[in-house]
């Protein structure tokens, strides 16, 4: 049963990400009560939206969150170039086969790497999402007739019950 859901389609920029964080943190607080992992859940949304903002070829995204009983799901859909879409898919595949220790090493190498991606990305977003406890990241890419790709990134994160309410 869905407790809360939102779907947005439209332009996204740095300030728009802040708007989403304000809304999402408020919604999580009202639905789940005060807890210590609300910022962590919002950070997953920030990373997805950041990817959408950097790589969407028309600056538009479709972004959805769904809060169910024991699970929060984020889904981002954007149109991207072939090279960006394939890089996203390959990156996710690489991360999935790593264990926690390998992800930690990859994170430290990447954050200390002098070079940024061609669009200014640090290459840390998906890595951070997995390191911080997302259950899974599912990436699908679909080729369009105009040679662009639609990328769909879906993240599931568990909503563990808090031991005791924070006051």
């Amino acid at each position: 049963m869905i407790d809360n859901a939102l779907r947005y389609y439209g332009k996204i920029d740095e300030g728009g990400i802040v708007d989403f964080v304000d809304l999402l943190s408020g919604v999580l607080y009202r639905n789940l009560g005060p807890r210590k992992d609300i910022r962590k859940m919002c950070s997953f949304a920030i990373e997805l939206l950041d990817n959408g903002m950097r790589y969407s070829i028309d600056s538009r995204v479709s972004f959805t969150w769904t809060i169910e009983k024991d699970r929060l799901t984020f889904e981002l859909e954007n149109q991207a170039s072939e090279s960006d879409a394939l890089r996203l898919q390959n990156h996710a595949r690489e991360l999935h086969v790593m264990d926690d220790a390998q992800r930690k090493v990859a994170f430290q190498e990447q954050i200390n790497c002098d070079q940024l991606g061609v669009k200014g990305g640090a290459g840390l977003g998906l890595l951070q999402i997995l390191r911080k406890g997302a259950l899974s990241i599912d990436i699908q890419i679909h080729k369009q007739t105009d040679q662009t790709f639609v990328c769909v990134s879906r993240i599931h994160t568990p909503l563990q019950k808090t031991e005791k309410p924070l006051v």
Partner: protein
Amino acid sequence: MIISPPTKSSPSVAFDEDTNIFKIEGMSTLVNAVEFYDSAIGWINTNEMLLKGSVAFHFHLPYFNSASMKGILMLMQRIKKGIDNDYTWSISWNVEDDDEFLLDAAESFEDMLGVSIHLIRT
């Protein structure tokens, strides 16, 4: 002295010469985050004479993207360089509500820098 005024998606960067507090405060969801923090490093390099005393670098960043995390690490590495050169500089990190995201970030920075980070719990 305001080094960089806040925007909706970038923190304010300011140095108070009376209290010797260098403060970075606000949201950081920048696309060009590394460039932003690099300019703060540039200010420190140019104005190092102002920072010869005991300076507290205070980070209060409720939310930041991972590109900002890279920029913040670069800034902290510059602060560490000062500490290694015997400046009495310190780093403090604001944590609201014992939040996991902020505590994990502080721990990661401490781990990568090898410098102690003072947590300010609010």
